[in-house]
């Protein structure tokens, strides 16, 4: 690399004092070991970091967000794939008592839930086998009713 001419400051925009200092030190040599010490210090300050130390919070944040979005998407898709259709009955510990055959429940279009307090005797008349020694006592019932009004399933709790 060719040294620049002393009047190069017009081209590189540096101050005239810079060119003067260069002329003064053009033939000077640094003390022994200074250059090596400077190079070592530079190397320590700008040492190559392992890959995992190069990740800062700022760098991680967008990627973490993208990861969360991807996970949520996977969750939603997996949920959609795994969830049974709304009408499909499955066994569970605390569920409804079917009042209609499974195929009719499955075929019911737009069933809706109705809550009512019904006398025990009325529930017995509906075919639900419970004791009606207190016939007028109210039992809280959650009834799944088809659009046609047919009761499909019931869940009971004493008030």
């Amino acid at each position: 690399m060719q040294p620049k001419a002393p009047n190069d400051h017009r081209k590189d925009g540096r101050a005239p004092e810079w060119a003067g200092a260069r002329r003064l030190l053009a033939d000077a040599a640094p003390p022994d070991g200074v250059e090596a010490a400077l190079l070592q210090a530079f190397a320590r300050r700008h040492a190559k970091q392992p890959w995992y130390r190069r990740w800062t919070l700022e760098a991680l944040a967008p990627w973490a967000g993208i990861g969360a979005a991807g996970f949520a998407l996977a969750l939603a898709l997996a949920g959609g794939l795994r969830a049974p259709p709304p009408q499909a009955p499955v066994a569970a510990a605390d569920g409804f008592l079917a009042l209609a055959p499974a195929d009719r429940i499955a075929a019911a279009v737009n069933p809706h839930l109705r809550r009512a307090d019904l006398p025990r005797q009325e529930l017995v008349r509906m075919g639900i086998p419970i004791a009606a020694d207190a016939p007028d006592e109210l039992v809280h019932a959650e009834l799944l009713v088809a659009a046609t009004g047919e009761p499909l399933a019931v869940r009971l709790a004493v008030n």
Partner: protein
Amino acid sequence: MRTMLPMLPITALALVLAAPAVQAEERAPLVVADFESSEVMLLRVNATTRCREDCVVRGMPYSAQRVYESVQVLADGNRIVNRSSEQLYRDADGRTRVESDWLGQALVQIQDPVQGMSYRLQPSAKTGLSMAMGAPAPSPRNAPPPSMSPVAGMAAEGLAPALASATVSADGLRSTRPLGTRQMEGETVEGTLQTTTIPAGKAGNTQPIVTTAEVWRSRALKLDLYTRVIDPRSGERVTRLENLRRGTPSPSLFTVPGDYTVREIKRR
């Protein structure tokens, strides 16, 4: 906090994407209980009552067959007719036993206010469930109504015939009128007819819907002997007692046979 800011829009996106899964939970599918779970639910209903002593009928033992009949006439003239029956027993101590069919199996329900136990038995498998009888857990929602003293109850019972005149609800949609007395199954029964009217337009109906419930009750046995409900939406349902016999049934009917395996369900 500053480093979290770039995540906010992406987190919002994640929530939007996750929303369908949350909604799927909200419109959870119908969960039908398995046989044992539904039995536990029904046992709990049987064993949980706040009308424990007041509703025990002592000194009036009987046995009878209760018959259910329903007739539904479809728009094309077709008819759906169902008939079922169950056997009823009550002893002098107020224990009751109901034998019926449920989901294709024989079912026996025993309510024993003397021992304070409720049972649901499956004779075909010689198994069953039991639960101690008790009142529902207190909560603001199920606060018990003010109870009537035994003396007041007797007075109300005595005044009932005098009060059994036609009544009409304030809104005019429900009326009750007495039907007098008659003999059924060797018992004197008193009848009432309750008429309920659903005004036009209330349920999308162009004309009023009128339902009637005719009930014939034995005051001595504290038992309905005949009920006929007519609802144009669901048809006609009749419940009646047949082969009514006064007298104490065999005590063995109110105990669990020794060779049954009965599991006690603890009250929650």
